[in-house]
C-alpha cells in the first residue's frame, strides 16, 4: 500500500533536487558557462507556470463537472501566443528598455511613474493572488490527503502539512528569488527549477493519461467510446461562458504577476517569443490532451462522490499503481510549488518596491537620498514580503477551510487580475491614455469585481444573503449578481462583463477628459512607439547591423576619417576579426566617451542608447541633453559677446587708423606750411640780396632800404625757427618747468614792457592793479611769454582806430582768470577755435609772425596746468588765461 512516509521521502528528495538544480543553474549563470540556460526551451517551459495545480488537478475536475469548457482555460493563452505574440514582444521590449520589475512597475512607468497607480495594482494583485496561493496549498493538502486515506497507519494533519509546505516554499523563494540585489538580474536558478517542474508535470499527466487510455480503457477507441457514454459527452456548450472564459484566461495570461515575471522580467531575448509562440501552445495541447479521458474514466470507475479534482491521483492509486501515483503526485506538487514560488517572488517585488519602500523612505523623511544601506533594506523588505505573502496564503487557506471548488477560486482570481488589462493594453497602443484614466478605470473595475464576484463567491460571511437577493441598501438594481436589473446571466459572465466594460469605459472617458503631464506624455510615446525608440536584441547578425549604425552615426559626428580610425583601433584592440568591432560594453563606453567629446556626454549617451538599445532615452537623459543645450547656448552667447568685442576693437582700430592718417595728413600739411613760411622770407632775402649784388646805379637810399628788408626777413626767419623749436619742445614735453612763487602784477609788468617796446604807445592798456596783487605758483617766465603773445596780438590785430586793451582779473577758487580784452571787431565765430592751431592766421595781411604764437600759448598753459581760450560773444576779442595754484589774494588788507 502507498506509504505516506515514502511519499514524504520522495517529496523531500524532489525538493532537494530542485534546490540542487536551482543552485547549479545560478552557479553556471554566474560563470556564464551554459548557453542553454538562456535558451528558448527553458523560456517556453518556464511559461508553463500558467498551468498550476488548478489545471493539473482541477482541469479533470472541471471536465467532469462542465465537459469541454475546461478547454477555454487553455484556449485563451494559446490565442494570445499565436495571435498576439508581437504584442507580447512589445511588452518584453518595453520591459527591458524601461527596466521594468513587475506588472505594477510597468503600469506605473507608463502613466508617468505614478506610485499611487503602482500601489493600486499591487494591492489588487495581492488580493487576487492570495486566494490563488491558498488554492495551491489546498491542492497539495488534498493530494497528501488522498495518500493518507490510503494509508490509515499514519495520523495525518492537514494544517501541519500545509504549514511546513508553506514554510519550505517561502525558504525556496527567498533563497533563489532574492539572492541578487539587482532585480534586473535574471533568476536563472528559479527559472531552471521551474522548467524542470514543467517537464515533471507534463510527463506525470501524460503518464497517467497513457495509463488510463491504454492501461485501463484498453486503447484509444475504447476510451472514446467511454467518453461518449459518460455524461461529459452530453454537456451543452454555453457560448457566452466560453467566450468570456477564453477572454478571461487570455487576459490573465498577460496580466498575472507571475506570468509577467517569467514572460517579461525573466526574458533573456525577445526572439525566444517566436519559438514560444508555437512551443507553448503545443505544451498546453499535450498537457490537456488526456484530461477528458481521465475525467470520463474516473467518473466511470471511481465511486460516486469521489472528488473529480483528484482523479489524476486517485485513479492510479485505485489501480494499485503506486509509482504512477507518486509521479502524478509530484506533477501536482510541481504545479503548485512553481506557481507559488514565482507568484511570491513577483508579488514580493511589487509589495517591496511600491508599498514598503515608499512608506519606509517617507517615514525616514529623506526620500531623496538613497545610500548604500538602502539596498540592504530593499533585500530585507523583499524577503519579508515573501514571508508575509506566503503567510497570507496560509492563513487564507486555514480560515476559508478549503471547501470551495478549486476552479471557482481560479476564475474569481482571473477576473480580478483582468481589471489591469484595459490600462495595460491602452497604455501600449493609445498615447492618449492618462494616469487619471487608468486609476479611475482600475478603481471602478476593482470595486465591481469585489461586489459582483469576490464577495458573493468567496466572502459569504461578509455579504449577507439578503444583499444578494434584494440588492445593496435594498435597492433592486444593486443586486451583486444582477446589476442594473440584468438577470439570468451566469455569475462569472455577469461579473466579467460589468467590471471590464465599466472599467474600460471609465478608463477611456477619464483619459479623454484629463490632461496628461509631461512625464506621462513622454512615457506614453516611449511605450506606444517602443520599436522606434529601442533596438532589436543583440545577436551576431544584430550586432553587426548595430555596429554599422554606430559607424554611420560616428562618421556624422566625428568625420569619416577619424571615425574609421577609431573603429580600426577598437577592432585591433578586440583582436580584429571581421570588418567592424563587436559592440561590447567596453567598446560602447569608449565610443560614448569619444562622441561625448564632440556632442556632450548626455547626447552621446542618448545616441548610443538609441542604437545599441539596452536602455532607452530616459527623462534624466533628456534633461541632461537639455542642460548641454543650455550650455551651448551660453557658449554661443559668449561667442556673440566676443564677436561684438572684436567688432568694437576693429572699430577702434579703424578709428585709430583714421586718426593716424589724419595726423599724417596734418604732418604733411604742417611740413608744407613750414616750407611755405620758410621760403617766403627767403624769397625776399634772395631777391634783394641779388639786387644789391648786381646793383648798378642803385641809390644809397634804395640800398639802405633793401638791406633793411633783408634784415627784417632774416629776423622773421629766426623768429619762425625759434617758434618752431619752442613748439616742438613743448609738444614733446621736453621742456623743464621752473615753478616759482611770484606776484601776478609783476609778471604783467614785465610782459607789457616787453610786448609794447617799439610800438610807440599805440595800444592803450587798462589795468586794475588792486586785482593784480595776487601770489601765484607757476613758471613765471612762461606765463610772461603767454601774456606777451596776447598783448602783441592785440597790437597787431586790433582793428579799432584807437586800439585799447583791458586786462581784467577774477578769482574762482584756486584758479585765476586773466582776461585780455581789446576793443577791436573780434575774431569771426568760425575762426575762434582755429586761432590756436599752428599757422592759423585770421588776417594774413597783418601777419608779422608765422602763426605759431597762440599754438605755443596753448601748449604752455597746458604744461602749467592751466588753460587759454577765446571767450566768444563779447565786444572785441577776449582771450582768457586760466592760471592755477593761486595761494593768496593780498589786496584785501593792503590796498
Amino acid at each position, binding site marked *: 500500500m502507498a506509504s505516506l512516509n515514502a511519499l514524504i521521502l520522495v517529496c523531500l528528495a524532489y525538493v532537494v533536487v530542485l534546490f540542487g538544480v536551482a543552485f547549479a543553474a545560478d552557479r553556471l549563470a554566474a560563470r556564464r558557462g551554459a548557453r542553454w540556460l538562456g535558451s528558448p526551451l527553458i523560456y517556453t517551459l518556464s511559461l508553463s507556470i500558467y498551468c498550476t495545480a488548478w489545471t493539473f488537478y482541477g482541469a479533470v475536475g472541471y471536465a467532469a463537472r462542465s465537459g469541454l469548457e475546461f478547454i477555454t482555460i487553455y484556449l485563451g493563452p494559446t490565442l494570445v501566443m499565436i495571435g498576439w505574440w508581437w504584442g507580447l514582444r512589445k511588452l518584453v521590449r518595453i520591459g527591458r528598455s524601461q527596466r521594468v520589475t513587475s506588472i505594477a512597475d510597468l503600469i506605473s512607468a507608463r502613466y508617468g511613474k505614478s506610485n499611487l497607480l503602482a500601489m493600486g495594482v499591487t494591492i489588487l494583485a495581492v488580493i487576487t493572488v492570495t486566494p490563488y496561493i491558498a488554492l495551491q496549498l489546498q491542492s497539495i493538502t488534498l493530494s497528501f490527503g488522498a495518500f493518507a486515506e490510503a494509508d490509515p497507519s499514519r495520523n495525518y494533519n492537514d494544517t501541519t502539512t500545509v504549514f511546513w509546505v508553506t514554510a519550505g516554499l517561502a525558504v525556496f523563494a527567498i533563497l533563489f528569488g532574492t539572492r541578487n540585489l539587482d532585480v534586473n538580474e535574471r533568476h536563472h536558478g528559479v527559472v531552471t527549477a521551474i522548467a524542470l517542474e514543467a517537464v515533471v508535470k507534463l510527463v506525470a499527466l501524460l503518464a497517467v493519461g497513457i495509463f488510463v487510455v491504454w492501461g485501463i480503457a484498453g486503447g484509444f477507441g475504447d476510451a472514446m467510446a467511454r467518453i461518449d457514454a459518460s455524461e461529459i459527452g452530453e454537456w451543452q456548450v454555453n457560448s457566452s461562458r466560453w467566450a468570456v472564459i477564453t477572454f478571461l484566461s487570455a487576459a490573465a495570461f498577460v496580466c498575472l504577476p507571475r506570468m509577467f515575471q517569467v514572460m517579461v522580467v525573466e526574458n533573456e531575448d525577445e526572439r525566444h517569443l517566436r519559438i514560444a509562440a508555437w512551443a507553448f501552445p503545443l505544451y498546453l495541447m499535450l498537457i490537456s490532451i488526456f484530461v477528458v479521458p481521465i475525467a470520463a474514466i474516473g467518473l466511470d470507475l471511481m465511486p460516486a462522490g469521489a472528488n473529480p479534482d483528484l482523479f489524476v491521483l486517485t485513479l492510479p492509486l485505485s489501480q494499485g499503481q503506486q509509482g504512477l501515483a507518486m509521479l502524478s503526485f509530484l506533477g501536482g506538487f510541481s504545479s503548485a510549488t512553481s506557481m507559488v514560488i514565482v507568484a511570491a517572488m513577483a508579488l514580493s517585488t511589487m509589495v517591496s518596491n511600491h508599498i514598503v519602500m515608499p512608506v519606509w523612505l517617507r517615514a525616514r523623511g529623506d526620500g531623496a537620498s538613497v545610500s548604500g544601506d538602502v539596498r540592504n533594506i530593499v533585500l530585507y523588505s523583499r524577503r519579508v514580503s515573501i514571508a508575509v505573502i506566503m503567510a497570507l496564503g496560509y492563513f487564507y487557506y486555514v480560515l476559508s477551510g478549503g471547501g470551495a471548488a478549486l476552479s471557482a477560486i481560479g476564475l474569481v482570481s482571473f477576473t480580478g487580475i483582468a481589471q489591469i488589462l484595459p490600462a495595460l493594453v491602452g497604455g501600449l497602443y493609445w498615447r492618449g491614455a492618462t494616469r487619471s484614466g487608468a486609476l479611475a478605470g482600475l478603481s471602478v473595475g476593482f470595486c465591481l469585481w469585489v461586489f459582483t464576484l469576490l464577495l458573493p463567491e468567496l466572502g459569504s460571511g461578509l455579504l449577507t444573503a439578503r444583499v444578494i437577493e434584494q440588492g445593496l441598501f435594498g435597492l433592486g438594481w444593486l443586486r451583486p449578481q444582477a446589476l442594473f436589473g440584468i438577470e439570468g446571466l451566469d455569475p462569472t459572465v455577469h461579473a466579467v462583463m460589468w467590471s471590464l466594460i465599466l472599467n474600460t469605459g471609465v478608463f477611456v472617458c477619464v483619459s479623454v477628459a484629463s490632461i496628461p503631464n509631461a512625464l506621462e506624455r513622454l512615457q506614453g510615446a516611449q511605450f506606444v512607439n517602443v520599436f522606434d525608440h529601442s533596438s532589436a536584441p543583440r545577436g551576431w547578425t544584430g550586432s553587426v547591423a548595430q555596429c554599422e549604425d554606430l559607424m554611420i552615426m560616428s562618421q556624422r559626428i566625428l568625420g569619416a576619417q577619424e571615425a574609421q580610425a577609431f573603429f580600426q583601433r577598437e577592432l585591433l584592440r578586440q583582436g580584429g576579426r571581421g570588418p567592424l568591432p563587436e559592440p561590447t560594453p567596453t567598446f560602447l563606453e569608449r565610443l560614448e566617451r569619444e562622441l561625448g567629446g564632440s556632442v556632450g556626454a548626455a547626447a552621446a549617451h542618448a545616441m548610443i542608447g538609441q542604437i545599441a538599445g539596452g536602455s532607452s532615452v530616459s527623462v534624466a537623459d533628456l534633461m541632461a541633453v537639455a542642460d548641454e543645450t543650455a550650455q551651448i547656448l551660453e557658449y554661443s552667447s559668449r561667442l556673440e559677446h566676443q564677436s561684438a568685442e572684436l567688432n568694437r576693437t576693429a572699430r577702434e582700430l579703424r578709428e585709430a587708423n583714421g586718426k593716424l592718417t589724419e595726423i599724417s595728413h596734418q604732418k604733411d600739411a604742417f611740413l*608744407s606750411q613750414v*616750407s*611755405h613760411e620758410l*621760403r*617766403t*622770407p*627767403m*624769397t*625776399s*632775402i*634772395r*631777391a*634783394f640780396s*641779388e*639786387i644789391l649784388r*648786381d646793383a648798378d646805379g642803385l641809390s644809397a637810399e634804395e640800398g639802405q632800404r633793401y638791406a633793411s*628788408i633783408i634784415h*627784417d*626777413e632774416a629776423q622773421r626767419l629766426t623768429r619762425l625757427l625759434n617758434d618752431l623749436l619752442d613748439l616742438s619742445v613743448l609738444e614733446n614735453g621736453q621742456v623743464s618747468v621752473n615753478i616759482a612763487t611770484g606776484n601776478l602784477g609783476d609778471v604783467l609788468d614785465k610782459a607789457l614792457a616787453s610786448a609794447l617796446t617799439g610800438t610807440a604807445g599805440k595800444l592803450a592798456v587798462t589795468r586794475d592793479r588792486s586785482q593784480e596783487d595776487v601770489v601765484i605758483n607757476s613758471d613765471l617766465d612762461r606765463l610772461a611769454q603767454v601774456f606777451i603773445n596776447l598783448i602783441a596780438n592785440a597790437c597787431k590785430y586790433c582793428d579799432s582806430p584807437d586800439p585799447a586793451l583791458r586786462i581784467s582779473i577774477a578769482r574762482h577758487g584756486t584758479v585765476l582768470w586773466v582776461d585780455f580784452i581789446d576793443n577791436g571787431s573780434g575774431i569771426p565765430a568760425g575762426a575762434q577755435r582755429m586761432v590756436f592751431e599752428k599757422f592759423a592766421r585770421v588776417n*594774413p*595781411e597783418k601777419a608779422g609772425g608765422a602763426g605759431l604764437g597762440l599754438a605755443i600759448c596753448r601748449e604752455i598753459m597746458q604744461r602749467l596746468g592751466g588753460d587759454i581760450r577765446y571767450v566768444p560773444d563779447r565786444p572785441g576779442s577776449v582771450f582768457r588765461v586760466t592760471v592755477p595754484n593761486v595761494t593768496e589774494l593780498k589786496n584785501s588788507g593792503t590796498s
Partner: protein
Amino acid sequence: MGRHVVLIEDEPNITEAIRFLLTRDGWQVDTHADGTDAVEVILNAAPDLVILDVMLPGKSGMEILKDLRAVAGMEHLPVLMLTARGQARDREMAEKAGVSRFMTKPFSNTEVLTAVRDLHAQAKQG
C-alpha cells in the same frame, strides 16, 4: 605788343623785389595783393603777362587761373605762377589749370626775368 605785367602777390617785400626787377627791364608793373577780385583786376588791366602767387588771401592762385582761362580771349594770356610750397602736386594742378610757366620760391632774379622775357616772346610769335 606792349610790356604790361599784372603781379598778384600778398607778400609786400616780394612784390617790391619783382616790381623793381621788371620796371628796370622796361615793364609796366601793376600789383594787387588780394585773391578775391584778382580776375577782374587782370581783365580790367588787360596786361601782356600775369605773375600769380598761389597762396593768396580770399582766393587761391589756382582758382584765379582757372577762372581766367574760362574767359574768352584769355586762353593764351601768358601766366607765370610762383609758389612757396613747391610740391609736385601743386605743379600738376597748375599745369592742368593752364599755367604758362611754374616757378618755386625762392627764385633767382635772372630766372624770373628770363621766364618773363621767354613767355613774352612766345606770345608775340604765337
